[in-house]
């Protein structure tokens, strides 16, 4: 009795200790953060990741928040609407963490004016607000700069670009996003169609959905697991006893994630769900074996006897449960080969989860069962039949038996055809990481994204970062001309390229404005004077010449001495004649035609040609300076000096294209895309490399970054990762089965149903057109891990039955015992995963349904294909040398030593 009491106290202490640890692990869970970004998947050493970090360091965040405001059926360029835009713009500007807001109402406009050049807000000038027609003229005069960037072509939609600090935490970004969202919501009006988009927003939405899905699906899966427990055992302790270890495991793993500051990603979010579903099998096994033993008693069983029954049950089931855990863990372990960090973390967490689940099940289930039955057990009618769930020994098993026994030849042919078919489908597997495809087309995020891609320049971004060996090398007219040439080249072959921002845009703009009153090839007669106020001669400020008696307190000298004469140049333009003859007009037309760069000029080209003749509004200088003589200069170096001087005018406004106002050694080209499909990105990247591999100046380097490039590179990684993890998992499973049965042949037989279910998955992916992405690509390796359980169970059962009955009786017995359990497990796991279809994010639902499908295929394939092969082999010879597996022998030896 003392021993019993001691045992009871020990049981209570174990349970109390586990619960205490569980409570402690729950506390930090509130600190968990969610990172829905795709960037989180990019390996640190990957070139695009390195480039993006460099870009963010030098040029700021590459993923701005895009707020678009649209007025239905009329232009937004009306005072009333512009006032609203100003309100939103200044409201966003005042939000902490916002670095810069670019909006139609604050974006700069550069123009040549009567007195020089003006850099003023697009929508106002020095006298204040302007009339709408003038604003439209301004927009059209630099449409490449404004249309699609801050305003749509039809002027109904305005876009506000919100740039924020690049080093903010996911939490801060979430806060920022919500602040922008709530500010914009204040302007809700039926006339306005307001949306917030951009990759940062999309990733925030992913994080929000992950949080929502976790709160919805985890309880739902838990409920399904509870229902399965209830159906399996039909008693309250049959529901609670196996569920508690699962809940404890989930709490430990999730708590552990919080303690180690791990973020919940798009894949690690599945960890608690997987643990719940997969781990449920272990507790079911222990409890069902215990009940089987217990219910064989027809009379009262006291607590001491119950402890013995429990001990016996655990001993019997221990090996198969541990093996099941190991094979499942193998599937997860295979993710360790992935180059993608979050997948490795996912694999690690799931592997730990499986082992913790095993540990917790073996640690607290026995004490809980002993405590539950501490007063003994009295049989009742409700305990008689444990065969409550699953399939009765009926037609279905007879059908399977018939297929295996009589149609194994046909089956083999069908299986070969199936494998071949699946193999041919492999090249048709589609991969794709476009995050927007994770959202349902009916969702606002998806629709906003679509709008940005159809009405504006789009959300796709590819960056090219150039680095020159010396400071200031970037300001090279030859190189900047190449950028200009590249812009035309890539736009020509890629209709998805909507805009290209680079230093060449600014140089062209300023060149045009600065030379609006110039005459090409005209030479200025006077020599420029080199000034040094502190020198002892010439115009030295302290020289005798300057220190005359004209002190500052003497007469005032006019500031504007010869300004007017300069402005008179406008009147000297040689295209100002009037009353031209027909011949003169024809001559001008011909000249205009020659000025166009195309053999088939449009009316617009011709007008441009005309403007060039007269240098109207600087049209003759709408170029990157190429000919020194045209600018009154002599050498390329002189041209480069001119470009440097242009940069002074843009100083402070060129942070997004050059890394230094005067002597940049890095420059950034930003290519905007309205389509981020793999094909488009592949095409754009190929063009980039084809052009710049040829054109990059010697000693310079370039690298490609941008958020869209991440998609493309990750896409490749996912495919490689997929092959590695599948092959790794198959090899490990083969190794385990071979180890258990001490036969490589049995190892191969065990792989048949697994490969079959992989084939089924491939066909399903191809037929449904579902793409392999970060989430859906998890299916295969996990299928291998979980599916291997079924193969091992069938092989173990077949071996056991073969040793004690005739071959003809094996199948039916196999199906009615192991078969039933396998189908029941596949059903419960499948239903559990099917709950994922309720997730907001499409890949999660796809993962759940594909996994459920593979469980179905895997279980049936194990029950049909393995027996079909084994019936054709000499089973006795096959299993001859391994009636006791190495593991069995080891455990036996271990037990003996313990007793000894």
């Amino acid at each position, binding site marked *: 009795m003392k021993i019993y009491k001691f045992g009871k106290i020990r049981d209570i202490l174990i349970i109390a200790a586990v619960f205490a640890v569980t409570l402690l692990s729950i506390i930090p869970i509130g600190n968990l953060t969610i990172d829905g970004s795709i960037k989180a998947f990019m390996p640190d050493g990957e070139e695009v990741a390195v480039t993006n970090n460099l870009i963010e360091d030098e040029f700021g965040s590459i993923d701005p928040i895009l707020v678009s405001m649209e007025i239905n059926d009329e232009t937004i360029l009306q005072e009333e609407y512009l006032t609203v835009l100003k309100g939103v713009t200044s409201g966003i500007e005042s939000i902490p963490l916002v670095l810069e807001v670019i909006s139609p109402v604050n974006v700069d406009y550069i123009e040549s004016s009567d007195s020089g050049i003006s850099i003023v807000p697009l929508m106002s000038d020095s006298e204040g607000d302007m009339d709408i027609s003038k604003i439209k003229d301004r927009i059209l005069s630099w449409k490449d700069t404004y249309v699609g960037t801050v305003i749509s072509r039809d002027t109904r939609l305005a876009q506000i670009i919100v740039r924020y600090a690049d080093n903010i935490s996911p939490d801060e970004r979430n806060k920022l996003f919500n602040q922008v969202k709530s500010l914009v919501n204040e302007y809700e009006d039926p006339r306005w169609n307001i949306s917030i988009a951009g990759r940062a927003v999309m990733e925030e939405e992913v994080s929000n959905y992950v949080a929502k899905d976790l709160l919805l699906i985890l309880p739902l899966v838990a409920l399904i697991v509870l229902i399965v427990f209830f159906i399996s055992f039909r008693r309250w302790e049959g529901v609670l006893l196996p569920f508690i270890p699962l809940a404890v495991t989930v709490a430990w793993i999730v708590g552990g994630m919080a303690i180690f500051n791990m973020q919940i990603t798009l894949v690690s979010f599945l960890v608690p769900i997987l643990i719940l579903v997969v781990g449920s099998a272990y507790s079911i096994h222990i409890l069902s074996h215990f009940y089987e033993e217990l219910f064989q008693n027809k009379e009262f069983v006291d607590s001491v006897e119950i402890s013995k029954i429990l001990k016996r049950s655990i001993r019997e089931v221990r090996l198969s449960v541990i093996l099941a855990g190991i094979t499942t863990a193998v599937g997860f372990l295979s993710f360790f080969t992935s180059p993608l960090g979050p997948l490795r973390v996912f694999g690690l967490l799931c592997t730990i989860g499986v082992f913790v689940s095993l540990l917790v099940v073996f640690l607290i289930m026995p004490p809980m069962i002993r405590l539950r039955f501490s007063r003994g057990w009295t049989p009742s009618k409700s305990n008689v039949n444990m065969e409550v769930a699953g399939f009765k020994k009926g037609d279905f098993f007879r059908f399977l038996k018939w297929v295996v026994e009589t149609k194994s030849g046909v089956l083999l042919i069908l299986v070969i055809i199936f494998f071949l078919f699946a193999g041919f489908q492999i090249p048709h597997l589609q991969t794709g990481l476009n995050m927007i495809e994770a959202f349902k087309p009916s969702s606002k995020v998806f629709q906003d994204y679509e709008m940005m891609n159809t009405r504006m320049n789009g959300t796709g971004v590819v960056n090219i970062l150039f680095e020159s060996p010396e400071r200031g090398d970037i300001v090279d007219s030859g190189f900047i001309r190449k950028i200009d040439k590249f812009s035309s080249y890539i736009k020509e072959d890629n209709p998805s390229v909507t805009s290209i921002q680079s230093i060449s845009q600014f140089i062209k703009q300023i060149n045009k404005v600065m030379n609006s009153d110039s005459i090409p090839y005209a030479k200025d007669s006077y020599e420029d004077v080199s000034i040094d106020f502190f020198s002892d001669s010439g115009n030295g400020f302290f020289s005798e010449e300057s220190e005359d008696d004209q002190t500052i307190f003497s007469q005032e000298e006019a500031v504007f001495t010869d300004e007017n004469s300069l402005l008179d140049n406008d009147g000297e333009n040689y295209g100002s004649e009037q009353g031209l003859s027909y011949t003169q007009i024809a001559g001008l037309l011909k000249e205009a035609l020659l000025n166009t760069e195309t053999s088939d000029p449009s009316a617009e080209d011709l007008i441009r040609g005309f403007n060039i003749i007269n240098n109207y509004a600087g049209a003759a200088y709408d170029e990157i300076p190429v000919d020194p003589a045209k600018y009154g200069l002599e050498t390329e170096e002189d041209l480069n000096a001119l470009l440097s*001087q242009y940069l002074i005018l843009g100083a402070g406004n060129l942070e997004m294209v050059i890394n230094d106002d005067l002597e940049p050694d890095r420059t950034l080209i930003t290519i905007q895309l309205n389509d981020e499909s793999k094909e488009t990105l592949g095409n754009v990247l190929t063009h980039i490399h084809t052009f710049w591999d040829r054109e990059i100046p010697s000693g310079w380097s370039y690298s490609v970054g941008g958020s869209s490039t991440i998609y493309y590179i990750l896409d490749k990684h996912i495919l490689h990762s997929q092959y590695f993890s599948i092959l790794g998992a198959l090899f490990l499973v083969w190794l385990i089965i071979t180890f258990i049965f001490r036969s490589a042949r049995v190892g191969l037989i065990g792989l048949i149903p697994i490969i079959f279910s992989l084939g089924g998955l491939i066909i399903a992916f191809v037929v449904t057109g579902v793409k392999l992405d970060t989430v859906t690509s998890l299916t295969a390796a996990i299928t291998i891990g979980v599916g291997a359980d079924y193969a091992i169970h069938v092989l173990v059962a077949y071996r056991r039955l073969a040793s004690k009955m005739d071959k003809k009786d094996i199948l039916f017995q196999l199906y009615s015992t192991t078969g039933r359990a396998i189908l029941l497990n596949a059903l419960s796991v499948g239903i559990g995963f099917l709950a994922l279809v309720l997730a907001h994010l499409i890949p999660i639902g796809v993962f759940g349904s594909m996994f459920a499908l593979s469980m179905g295929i895997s279980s049936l394939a194990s029950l049909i294909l393995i027996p079909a092969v084994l019936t054709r082999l000499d089973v006795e010879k096959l299993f001859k040398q391994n009636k006791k597996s190495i593991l069995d022998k080891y455990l036996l030896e271990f037990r003996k030593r313990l007793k000894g």
Partner: protein
Amino acid sequence: MKKMILFSIFLIGMTELWAITGQEIMDRSIDIQETKSAAMDIQMDLVDDNGDVSNRRLQILSMQDNAGQNRTIAVFMSPANIKNTRFLIIENSDRSDDQWIYLPSLKKMKRIAASDNDSSFMGSDFTYGDMSDMKADKDSHTLLREEKYNGRDCYVVESLPLDPESASRSKLISWIDKERFVPIKVEFYDKRFKKLDRTAVSENITLVNEIWTPLSVTMTTHSTGHKTILLIKQVKYNIPMNPGYFSTNFLKTGRVSQ
């Protein structure tokens, strides 16, 4: 340029002061900016977070006209590509400043009507915005404490903008040398983040034309580790100056008309 000069002059000290309120300290400190004219030869060393240095050199003349408005001309001496690029800025009391630029490559002068911004001055850690607000009447000043900094007894004064909306920062904290009255350290707090953004430290404070002048000012941007060392190579105050230097004619030709 004018703002640059204002900033530089702001860092100039004066002799003893018995004032004890923050407002009085800053008023007196700002008062010494009232030089009638100044000429400076400045070198800007831009030091990035890797320690790489690039230099810029410019010369600045400024004078006050009879109406008390500043006129400034600045000439870039280096780097070579922008040598002789010149700016002229005429301050107006009733409207925004007039600005002209002369590009030596084009031999052209253009008037610039630029919108104000808080952007970096020529890639340095100084901005136009934080230099323009250096007038004592734009902030309210509070003496926080008195303490030693770099071995000098200092007043520590907090300056909060009276019009936070238009200001380019949320506050300044200045360490004013009690004896010379030179600000020897100024902390700039970001407008949006309200965090310490940049710090300016004055060194090598020398008496020039009876005005204590820091010949070296280091401005560090904490978020990037980037810093700008502003070295005053030569400086003169309150000297006779020909107004011809502050004309578009001089800007364009480099010569003072006789």
